[in-house]
C-alpha cells in the first residue's frame, strides 16, 4: 500500500516538476486548464497533475451537447462568407499560428479543429491531418531523460496526438511518412502517439484490400451511374449486360407537361435470358421488391424478376446424350469408392429458391414504372410476352419505410391481396394482348 502511494506521489511530483518546467519554457500545459478557473502557478500545476494520474478522464469533459463556446471558436467563425472547404480550413489552421505565436492553447484548438473537420468536408484528407499535427510545437514534448521517459511525458498533449490519429483511423486515413516524421519530432520515438501510429501502419495495410466486393470510395452522383454500379455489384455473372431502359427526364426540360420520368436500369445475363426462354408460360413470374442494397453509406433499392421454384416432378434433368463423343465418354459411372473421409459436402439441404431472371433499379418503385421495365425486357426476351407477370411490391409509392422489404407482404388481409394479384395479372395480360 505504502509502496503504491509512493509511486503515485513520485508520479505526481514528476508531472508537477515537468509541467512547471514546461510552464517556464513555453506555458503550454496551461492550455488544458479552463480559462474560467484562474489559479496560482504552483497550485494549479500540482492539483492538475495529481488528479490526472489518479482518475482517467476523457481529455475534454466539457464536450458534448452542452453548447458552451469552446476556446478558439472565433477562428472558425471568421472563415469568410459561407463557403466551407479545404482552403478555408487550412487558412484557419494557419491563422491560429499567426494569431498566437507561442501557440498557447493549441491542444484545445486541435480538439476543436477535429470536431470541425466534418463540416468542412476534409475528414478524409491526410494533408489536413498532417497540418493539424504540425500545430504542435516541436521538440518540446520529447522526453529528455530517463525519468521523463518512464513516466508519461506531457500526457494531455500525447492524448491529443492520439485523438488526431484516432480520428484518422475512424475515417480510414492511412498515415504516411510525413505523419511519422512529425510525430517523432513532436513526441519522440517512445510515445503513445507513435505507438498508435505503428499499430495503424501495421493493421491498415493488412486490412486495406480484404473486401472481395469492393465499392469505390466516391460513389457516382448520377442516379443512372449509381444504378449501373449497384447492378454490376450484385450480379456475379460478368457477361451480364446492363441496359438503360429509360433515361431520367427532369421536370424542367419537359416544361411541366410531362410527368417526371424516372430512370430504369436493368441487368440480365445470357444464362438468365436462356432460362427465361425455357420458362413454362403456364407459370407466372413475379416482380418483387424493393430490396435494399448498401453501397458504402448509400442505400439503393432494386427489384427482381423471378419465378417460383418448380415442384420436383416438373424439374427436368438435362441429360447429355451418351454417344455424343465416341472417344471421350461424357458420363462416367465409375464408383471411386469415396468413403466418408473424402466427403466435403455439408450434410444439409440448402435453401433453394426460384430462379432470378433479371434485376433492375428504377427511380420510382411503383407498378407503372416497373411495367415499363417489363416492356423493355420483352424486346430482348420475346418469351416474356406469353408469360403472365405478377407484381408483388411491398410499398405502393416511392417512399420506403419497410426495414426488411424482403419480408414484408403488402396485404392487410390475405384474401384481398390475392384479388389484387389477380387484378394485376389481368391488367398485365390485357396490356400484352
Amino acid at each position, binding site marked *: 500500500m505504502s509502496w503504491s502511494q509512493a509511486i503515485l506521489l513520485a508520479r505526481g511530483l514528476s508531472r508537477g516538476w515537468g509541467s512547471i518546467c514546461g510552464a517556464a519554457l513555453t506555458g503550454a500545459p496551461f492550455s488544458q486548464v479552463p480559462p474560467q478557473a484562474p489559479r496560482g502557478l504552483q497550485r494549479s500545476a500540482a492539483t492538475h497533475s495529481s488528479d490526472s494520474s489518479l482518475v482517467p478522464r476523457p481529455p475534454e469533459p466539457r464536450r458534448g451537447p452542452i453548447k458552451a463556446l469552446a476556446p478558439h471558436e472565433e477562428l472558425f467563425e471568421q472563415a469568410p462568407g459561407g463557403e466551407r472547404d479545404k482552403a478555408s480550413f487550412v487558412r484557419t489552421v494557419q491563422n491560429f499560428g499567426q494569431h498566437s505565436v507561442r501557440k498557447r492553447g493549441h491542444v484545445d484548438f486541435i480538439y476543436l479543429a477535429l470536431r470541425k473537420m466534418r463540416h468542412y468536408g476534409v475528414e478524409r484528407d491526410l494533408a489536413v491531418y498532417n497540418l493539424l499535427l504540425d500545430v504542435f510545437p516541436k521538440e518540446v514534448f520529447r522526453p529528455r531523460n530517463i525519468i521523463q521517459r518512464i513516466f508519461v511525458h506531457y500526457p494531455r498533449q500525447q492524448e491529443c496526438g492520439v485523438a488526431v490519429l484516432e480520428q484518422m483511423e475512424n475515417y480510414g486515413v492511412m498515415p504516411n511518412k510525413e505523419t511519422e516524421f512529425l510525430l517523432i519530432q513532436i513526441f519522440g520515438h517512445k510515445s503513445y502517439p507513435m505507438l498508435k501510429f505503428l499499430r495503424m501502419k501495421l493493421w491498415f495495410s493488412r486490412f486495406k484490400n480484404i473486401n472481395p*466486393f469492393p465499392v469505390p470510395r466516391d460513389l457516382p452522383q448520377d442516379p443512372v451511374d449509381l444504378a449501373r454500379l449497384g447492378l454490376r455489384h450484385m450480379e456475379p455473372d460478368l457477361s451480364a449486360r446492363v441496359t438503360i431502359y429509360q433515361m431520367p427526364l427532369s421536370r424542367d426540360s419537359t416544361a411541366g407537361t410531362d410527368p417526371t420520368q424516372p430512370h430504369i436500369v436493368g441487368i440480365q445475363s445470357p444464362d438468365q435470358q436462356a432460362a427465361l426462354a425455357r420458362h413454362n408460360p403456364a407459370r407466372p413470374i413475379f416482380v418483387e421488391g424493393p430490396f435494399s442494397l448498401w453501397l458504402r453509406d448509400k442505400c439503393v433499392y432494386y427489384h427482381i424478376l423471378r419465378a417460383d421454384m418448380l415442384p420436383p416432378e416438373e424439374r427436368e434433368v438435362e441429360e447429355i446424350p451418351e454417344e455424343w463423343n465416341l472417344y471421350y465418354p461424357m458420363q462416367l459411372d465409375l464408383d471411386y469408392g469415396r468413403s466418408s473421409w473424402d466427403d466435403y459436402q455439408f450434410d444439409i439441404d440448402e435453401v433453394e429458391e426460384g430462379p432470378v431472371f433479371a434485376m433492375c433499379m428504377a427511380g420510382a418503385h411503383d407498378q407503372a414504372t416497373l411495367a415499363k421495365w417489363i416492356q423493355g425486357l420483352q424486346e430482348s426476351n420475346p418469351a416474356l410476352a406469353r408469360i403472365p407477370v405478377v407484381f408483388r411490391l411491398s410499398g405502393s409509392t416511392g417512399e420506403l419505410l419497410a426495414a426488411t422489404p424482403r419480408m414484408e407482404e403488402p396485404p392487410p388481409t390475405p384474401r384481398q391481396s390475392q384479388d389484387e394479384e389477380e387484378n394485376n395479372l389481368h391488367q398485365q395480360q390485357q396490356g400484352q394482348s
Partner: protein
Amino acid sequence: MALVHKLLNGTYILRKCQLPSATSRLFLGPQFADYCSSSLHKPVAVPDKGGSPQKTERDLQGHHQREVALDITSPEENPEVSFDKAIRDEIKEHFRRLKDDFVNHWIGPEGRPLHEILLEQAKVVWQFRGKEDLDKWIVTSDKMIGGRSEVFLKMGKNNQSALLYGNLSSEAPQDGESGRSGYCAMISRVPKGPFERKKSYDWSQFNTLYLRVRGDGRPWMVNIREDTDIIQRKNQMYSYFMFTRGGPYWQEVKIPFSKFFFSNQGRIRDAQFQLLLDKISSVGFTLADKVDGPFFLEIDFIGVFTDPAHTEEFAYENSPDLTPRLFK
C-alpha cells in the same frame, strides 16, 4: 430442491453475461436476459409447429398467421403457473441430459461413433430450419447501453433460413461517458450440458468456417470466443470480417480460422496469437459500420469444414516494434 433450482438459475443468468460481443463488458447485469430472442419466441414455438406444413407454396394466409404469431403471444398460450411442476420438470430434464451424457459417452464423443467423427470433413454446426433453432441465438444491440439501434431475429419467409434485421443508429447515448455507439449483434448461446454445465465445441480437425448467407452489402464482423474459466480472458475474442455482396443470390462465405485476429475488449492486441479450436464457446456476428439505416442478413446455415488447400497456420506475424518481448 427449490433452492438448488434457484442456485442453478442464478448461475445461469450470471454466465449469460459472458457472451461475446464487442462491448459485452457493458452488459454486466441481469437485465441482459430480458432481451434474448428466446424469451419472445419460446412460447410460440409449440403451436406453430403443427400448422406449418405449407412450406413450399407461398401461401399468404399462412405467412400472415406466422407473422402475427411472432409478435403477440396468443391468449390461450397462458398455461397455469405451477412452481412445483416447473421445478420438477426442470430437474427431470437435467437428469435426462445427464443420462444422455453417460449413454453418449459410451457410444463415442458427442454421441456418435468415433470413426464417424474422425473421418468427418464438413460439419453443420448451426442451421435454421425451425423456431427452435432460433433459441440457440441471442440478439443484442446498443439499446443495452442506451443507444437507439434495434435488431430482431426471426425465421425467413419460407421458414428455411433465419432473418436478422433491424435498424442501426449510431447516435451515442447521452449518458455522459459514451462517445460512440451503434452496433447490433447476434451471438450463439453457449451450449449447456446437464445442470447448466457449460460445454464447448471442438473444431480442431477443421480449418475453415463456412457460412451461407445473403446480405444487403454491409460488412459484418464474425467473432469467435474461446471457452475459458479465467475471468481476465472473458473479453477476449477472435474476429474477422464478413463482407456481404447484396442482391438476390445466396453467398457462400468461407473464412479460414487462421485469419482470425485476436482482440481484447474490442481492441486489437499487439501480441497476436492463433485461435485454438479445441474449445470454442460461441460465435457471433456484429454489425457496426457507422452507417445509419435498416439492414438485414439472412443465414441459411453455419458450418465448419476442412479445406485441404489451405495450409496457412496464422495470417498475422508479430511486429518487433510493437511487441519486443516476443523477440527477445
